[in-house]
């Protein structure tokens, strides 16, 4: 009798997922991350004969299987705990369960290293942009945010720690920027120094960006730097008491758990306690001003507005954040896309109405040419002449003759656009040499 009970329990165990799929008697919750669910297939004899219907139904059933989220969390938990694998993500699990994205690791290892001449060319154009804006009363500042892999290489898996002396884009860019007297706030050595002097984590274990504590320290440094650059004084930011300490992963703010929640683990990981400074933003006093600024940057820029309202309170109301030089965001404590796109704006008006233009990127985004911003501004103030156009046309024809027949015919219109863009790029490089 007892054995029959055991057999019944096993058959019930096999039945439970289907019953759960139908009845949903146990609340499972949703998985974090982006995924799709297969639609219910429409029956047809053709589908039945070709097995398309059966395959689609299989996908539909699988996506709605009862306890599916628990099963996935179980799989992810085993992978994470036993094998240091972050489930179905591309994350790297380092020492002390510190999570890294692949981009910061690759750039720290020099895997995306640009040619030195290329870096010099880009910095030179940035310098020209800086000069053009300065002539119009606008101060340009390039802010380099720290790279988590460079900040704490001791937490990288041993196999991913680069050999000492590896040349990286960071080395090339900072060297060229200093040589060309580009206005640069390099926060990389600042964070390295703070690592041994500050009492709280500057990067979260399960986030790829600076922590709330690190971001607000960076913001203070940025304000001081801009005061010197622009000859002005910002409204005062006062620290009020000791920081608030948070240990629960669910309670971490903004980007401090942005790598942790997609893990979809069975048991929530205990976060390293993170500190959040208590700050008071005082209204502007006599001699203090809230300048207009344009931030063009990557996701590190969120740290200047989501943890504490630095951008909202220290800069004017018309200050904007151009996320990857594409989306126009209103500075806010949460994601606030205005729906506007940079490509649709009057670039000259946007720039010349500002006191500051601040480029903020972390190391692994250095290779991406400020997402087109520098080229756009350069061409705004250095429009092509008829002579330039003719020279570019000649280059385009030369490149066309050198291209393979397959490349030309695959996508004729797209090919012509690419050739034209490439020719213009080559021509502009020649002008700067």
């Amino acid at each position: 009798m007892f054995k029959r009970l055991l057999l019944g329990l096993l058959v019930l165990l096999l039945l439970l997922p289907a019953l759960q799929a139908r009845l949903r008697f146990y609340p499972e919750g949703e998985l974090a991350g982006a995924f799709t669910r297969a639609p219910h297939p429409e029956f047809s004899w053709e589908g039945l004969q070709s097995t398309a219907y059966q395959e689609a139904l299989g996908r539909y059933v699988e996506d709605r299987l009862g306890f599916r989220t628990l099963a996935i969390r179980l799989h992810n938990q085993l992978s994470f705990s036993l094998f240091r694998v972050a489930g179905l993500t591309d994350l790297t699990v380092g020492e002390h369960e510190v999570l890294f994205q692949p981009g910061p690791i690759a750039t720290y290892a020099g895997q995306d290293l640009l040619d030195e001449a290329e870096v010099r060319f880009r910095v030179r154009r940035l310098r020209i942009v800086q000069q053009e804006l300065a002539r119009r009363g606008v101060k340009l500042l390039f802010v380099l945010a720290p790279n988590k892999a460079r900040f704490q290489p001791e937490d990288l898996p041993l196999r991913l720690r680069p050999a000492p002396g590896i040349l990286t884009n960071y080395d090339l860019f900072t060297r060229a920027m200093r040589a060309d007297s580009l206005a640069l706030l390099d926060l990389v050595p600042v964070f390295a120094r703070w690592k041994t002097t500050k009492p709280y984590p500057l990067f979260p274990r399960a986030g790829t960006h600076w922590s709330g504590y690190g971001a607000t320290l960076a913001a203070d440094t940025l304000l001081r730097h801009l005061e010197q650059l622009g000859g002005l004084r910002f409204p005062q930011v006062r620290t009020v008491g000791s920081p608030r300490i948070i240990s629960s992963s669910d309670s971490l703010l903004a980007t401090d758990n942005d790598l942790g929640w997609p893990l979809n683990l069975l048991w929530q990981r205990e976060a390293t306690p993170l500190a959040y400074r208590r700050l008071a933003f005082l209204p502007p006093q006599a001699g203090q001003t809230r300048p207009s600024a344009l931030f063009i940057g990557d996701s590190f820029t969120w740290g200047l507005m989501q943890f504490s309202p630095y951008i909202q309170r220290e800069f004017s109301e018309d200050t904007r954040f151009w996320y990857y030089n594409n989306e126009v965001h209103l500075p806010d404590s949460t994601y606030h896309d205005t729906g506007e796109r940079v490509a649709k704006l009057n670039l000259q008006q946007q720039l010349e109405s500002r006191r500051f233009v601040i480029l903020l990127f972390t190391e692994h985004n250095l290779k991406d040419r400020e997402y087109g911003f520098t080229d756009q501004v350069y061409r705004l103030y250095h429009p092509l002449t008829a002579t330039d156009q003719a020279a570019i046309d000649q280059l385009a024809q030369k490149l066309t003759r050198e291209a393979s027949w397959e490349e030309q015919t695959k996508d004729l219109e797209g090919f012509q656009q690419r050739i034209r863009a490439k020719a213009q790029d080559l021509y502009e490089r020649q002008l700067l040499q």
Partner: protein
Amino acid sequence: MVFSSTLFLFYFLPGFLLLYFLAPARFKNVVALVASLLFYAWGGLNFLALFLASVVINFVLIRFMDKAQNWQKRIYLILSIVLNVAMLFYFKYANFFLENVSALGEAAGSSPLTWEKVVLPIGISFFTFEKLTYTIDVYRGVNKPLRSFWDFMLYIMLFPKMIAGPIVRFHEIADQLTDRTAFDTVDQKLAGLFRFMIGLAKKVLIANVLGEQADAIFSLSPAELPVAQAWLGAVAYTFQIYFDFSGYSDMAIGLGRLMGFQFPENFNNPYISRSITEFWQRWHITLGRWMRDYLYIPLGGNRVKPARLYVNLWTVFILSGFWHGAAWNFIAWGAYHGLFLVLDRLFLLRLYRKLGALSILPTFVITVVGWVLFRAETLAGALAYVSRMLGLGVNITAALPYYTREFWFTLVLAAVFSFMAALPRIERWEIRTLAASHFSVRAAAGITAVTALLLLLSMGYIVGSSFNPFIYFRF
């Protein structure tokens, strides 16, 4: 529908088990047959009608054969064999022969042939062999033919075994088709579920993990493959194919036990073999026996001169390779194994006897190289890969790229499970556990707990991973 799919595990299987367990004894065959028809039809209706027609024709022919005498009996035998083999050749080998004829024609200067590709019905290799065993066993008088057409159809179409084996010869389950009460016990059912989950875990937790990396390595150009990585890919595939195929057989055997059928074992720790001769007594046992009883022995078996015996061995194993797939690399794999069987008889067995247990190592290496022939897409690709394993060509001594802990852990686990039976005590424990047909209450609780645990782990991996192919489904 495959055994390790969500649809099978959590919809088809529990539904079928409930219906089967609740059905009266006289209706259990009906339930099993309907389930089998549904199972096969899920893979496409187009071949179901063709398959059923061949079952009907075989049943009728064999009934006539049983009643016929002398030369008429032999004519029915030949007719049945020709019909089944022709069907197998058309669907499985037509493309192969036409491609080679076309290639020869092109070499001779004529234009290439064009034809509509023939689609391979799933499981055709396995159920063709079973139809042949039925025909031949009845002809030989081993068993009387079944009276009921439906019992015959059930024998051929029983879903646990019909697509990828084990190849169940008719006389092995003839009596069980009509009376399974002796095996219809709760202990057998618990053992069946336990065996099924062991197979599922082998497939999902081990074979899939290793197979993903083996596929990645075999997809690289052999010319650029470091020697160490070439061997790693070959070894990973060696374990993948074992846990994939033996896992499937475990699931089939387990499902059979749940229904009261006792299917023959198909694997007995093949990688502890001390010779290729022993390997084929442990690997795909039911195919080996089929080849022996229906091909090798009719060719003369061991009762011929040595030279003829060697030719017979080669013939059998070339055909065995060809059975696996319509491509030259499968023929080469069969010939390769045939070669070592001949060498065993010439001198290797005497040498291995002196080495004792150490002969497991060279036998394993020979097997690994053989699996490369089996795995490669073409014969040329196979030879190029083996060349890299031997270090021929450009000397690339790069260190292994990074592989996850999961891969290495799984590889070690696979090796442990593959070789631990080399210790006699462990082999006896394994046989005792898997063959048990009666459990104490404590033992029953133990295997139930293990079964549940393996199910949960496997469910996590099935849902959490997208890599889930079966190797032997394409044969």
